[in-house]
């Protein structure tokens, strides 16, 4: 049976609708293989979703070790439930729903409620994409809100270095959990906006706000990095 290579999913590729349909077919093959006890199918699935599951679990629970536990539990629940999976939602959505339910239960036990507001009302706390001091005052008589210190071109040759990718990974790591989950699923894993909305039960607007903030902060980290040590 032909599986997609893990690389093809890991590179942030954006799929056209036709390709997505083909992926769904492939997904059902994975499900069948799993039901027949094919270990490779299980490994494939773990490779595809582990990073995303961990990010999403971290929205709800307080620590990384607890998030890892929740993900482990999720995989076991996936195995135990796979015979009942009917393909009405995508396998991806189904797995992430299992995770979200478990993570929420765990968070309730921990007495945590804060993370939900990050998902439901991310605009509650304003966060400018670019520091206000980079612009003229909004009341400036001639140039209100214009760049005072505009961004400058980045040196292409440094962008492609391994160090730059490490910096980006570190910048993503420091994001608030909901922003980190959204940018990981959208831009690292290459999910569509709709898939992310389904997995995280987000409104369209909130998905975009979280993505916007995450991307803005990573850009800022890149800018700082590229403007120092030149």
């Amino acid at each position, binding site marked *: 049976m032909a599986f997609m290579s893990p690389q093809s999913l*890991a*590179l*942030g*590729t954006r799929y056209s609708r036709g390709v997505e349909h083909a992926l769904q077919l492939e997904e059902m093959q994975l499900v069948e293989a799993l039901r027949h*006890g094919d*270990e490779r199918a*299980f*490994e494939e699935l*773990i*490779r595809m979703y*582990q*990073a*995303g599951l*961990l990010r999403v679990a971290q929205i709800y629970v307080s620590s990384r070790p607890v998030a*890892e536990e929740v993900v*482990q539990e999720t*995989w*076991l629940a996936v*195995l*135990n439930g796979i015979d009942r999976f009917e393909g009405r939602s995508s396998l991806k959505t189904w797995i992430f729903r299992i995770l979200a339910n478990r993570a929420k239960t765990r968070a309730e036990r921990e007495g945590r409620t804060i993370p939900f507001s990050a998902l439901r009302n991310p605009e509650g706390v304003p966060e*400018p*994409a*670019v520091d*206000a001091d980079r*612009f003229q005052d*909004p009341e400036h008589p001639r140039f*209100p*809100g*214009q*760049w005072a210190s*505009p*961004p*400058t*071109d*980045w040196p292409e040759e440094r*962008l492609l270095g391994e160090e*730059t*990718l490490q910096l*980006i*990974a570190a910048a*993503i790591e420091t994001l608030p959990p909901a922003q980190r989950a959204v*940018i*990981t699923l959208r*831009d*690292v*894993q*290459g999910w569509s*906006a709709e898939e992310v909305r389904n997995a995280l039960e987000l409104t*369209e607007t909130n998905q*975009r706000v979280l*993505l*916007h903030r995450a*991307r*803005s902060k*990573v*850009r800022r980290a*890149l*800018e700082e990095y590229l403007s120092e040590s030149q």
Partner: protein
Amino acid sequence: MTETVEKLSCQELVELVTDYLEDALSPEEKARFEAHIEPCEGCRTYLHQIKTTIELVGRVTPEDLTPDAEATLLGAFRNWHSR
């Protein structure tokens, strides 16, 4: 030339970049966005940097499972299969 709508400032534009890239702006907002950015070098550079950021984030390798965690899961899988 008469101005019927107020122009965007650079500070406002940077907050619309994601909506623009996600194709979530109304036709009027999109026209305002494009009218601003066409002659504005700072904002063009900004948009380009955001696109570069997205592309580079796409090259980050997703985190792998630790060997321990993977061994635990595969062990669980074998148990599950031989149930």
